[in-house]
């Protein structure tokens, strides 16, 4: 396989929380510019795998990692890798929308501000960036008169879209999503899924979901994990219709457990 079509490549990736091994020899290639979904029962290591890709796992304490992770062809455990630069390129969206308790405007600019020298962002430039980010997540019309409101007082759906918009000014390549719709209602879920489909191509999406219908709807490739191991990784339709591994078949046909 040609490397340049893959945004993320891992080679025999294992991870331990203290003594507990949460990932076992995971080798996976995530295609660039597409939506890939990660499915599997709770506790199978989906979220852990996701958090490896911007190395934010390390902020949670006693974590040991072995193996190789290449993002855009670069090994992220190389000594010259800056975690802050890595996290700019690999953004993350969480299960519960987590806008910061500051205004919509400041939320969008938060990432940019912490990475720019003080006072280097001109007002007109900031306004433009905010408008652009909100437009690309279809929030501009709803929020253009509410830029000064506290982001935590928005509707959940708007909050989650804002959390996606907040990543965009940093010009990420990859967006990791950890069950981004599980706190949203059906309408919000559809809105976020639609947004992902529009943005895919520009960005590589990797999405953890418990909702198999969602995995089928949005993703072009799908990965099934079970107890820390990668069981099967194929095109979504093939994985659901003709699973190769019996464990995958059990799960996707709801016979798991």
């Amino acid at each position, binding site marked *: 396989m040609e490397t340049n079509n893959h945004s993320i490549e891992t080679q025999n990736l294992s991870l331990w929380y203290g003594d507990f091994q949460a990932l076992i020899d995971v080798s996976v290639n995530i295609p660039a510019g597409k939506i890939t979904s990660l499915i599997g029962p709770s506790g199978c290591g989906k979220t852990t795998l996701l958090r490896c890709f911007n190395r934010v796992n390390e902020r949670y304490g006693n974590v040991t990692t072995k193996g190789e992770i290449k993002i855009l062809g670069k090994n992220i455990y190389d000594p010259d890798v800056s975690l802050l630069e890595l996290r700019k390129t690999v953004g993350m969206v969480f299960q*519960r929308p987590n806008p*910061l308790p500051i205004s919509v405007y400041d939320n969008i600019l938060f990432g940019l501000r912490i990475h720019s020298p003080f006072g280097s962002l001109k007002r007109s430039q900031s306004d433009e960036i905010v408008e652009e980010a909100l437009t690309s997540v279809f929030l501009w019309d709803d929020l253009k008169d509410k830029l000064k409101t506290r982001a935590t007082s928005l509707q959940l759906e708007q909050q989650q879209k804002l959390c996606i918009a907040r990543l965009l000014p940093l010009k990420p390549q990859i967006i990791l999503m950890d069950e981004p719709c599980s706190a949203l209602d059906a309408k919000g879920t559809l809105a976020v899924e639609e947004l992902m489909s529009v943005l895919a191509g520009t960005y590589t999406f990797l999405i953890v979901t418990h909702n198999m219908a969602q995995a089928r709807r949005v993703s072009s490739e799908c990965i099934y994990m079970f107890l820390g191991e990668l069981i099967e990784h194929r095109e979504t339709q093939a994985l659901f219709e003709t699973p190769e591994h019996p464990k995958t078949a059990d799960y996707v046909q709801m016979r798991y457990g």
Partner: protein
Amino acid sequence: MNSSTDISPELMFTETGIGRRNRFIENVFKIFFFIMTCLMILPLLLIIGYLFYKALPVLSLDFLFSNPKDNMRGGGVWAPFLGTIYLVVVSLLVAAPIGVFAAVYLNEYARDNWFTRIVNLAVVNLAGVPSIVHALFGVGAFVLFAGLGESILAASLTLAIMTLPVIIASTTEALKAVPMSFREACWNLGATRWQTIRRIVLPNSISGILTGVILQVSRAAGETAPIMFTGAVFYKAIAEGNPLAYNITDQCMALSLHLYTISTQVPDVTEGIPYGTAIVLVGSVLLVNAAAIILRIYLRTRKRW
């Protein structure tokens, strides 16, 4: 057992014997808890009311701004009042930054390992050490070893050691109240820990932190033991009405010690004076606490999530 189909519609949803008993017990407990609440408030009101009643003859601005006179049998409380302010302010100037920043380190940077566990254990235990023990430590460490002599500085440092663990504990509580998801959001945008603390964690915990610090004013102001061997004296006259009358290398008077002295050591004190002294002590503490509450309310209106 009656099922609702056995009884006539008129009797449906009416009270049964068990229902009556449950309602009775419910009322008994409600009244019991209410009485307990009254018992808690009553002594406070009685104490303050009694103090006021007894102190009324001597209370005046002059009482606050003049030194004790006639071998402490008369006069006011200016020297001890100003002394207490000095002790409290200097001790908080030392304890608040150390305590708050130590708590920030323990909560935001330190990982959960044997070192932080020992530090946390030490903080909890230090908070439980009796104040007279802090006093002995203060004499040894500050008065003798550091050579500060008996002075406002030595006494304040002793008070600072005493209040430090509680400030650390209350700051930790305030920091923990900031949801983890805010920190995660920051980290995933590539923020350093300091940027996260500076822009999100501190602005959202500052009301809790300040309240914790200010509540230590009342503890520092009320303590007698830690200061009586380290810097507070029975009697020292200072310039009346001059708020800069003490130097921090001086010894000073303090309200708590002064109250003890005139109540037990000095014969024939004018009757209202000990009560007046107590009112000044309690009043200034209540005033500071009220300020803390107002500040807290103000800062809280600005935070919402």
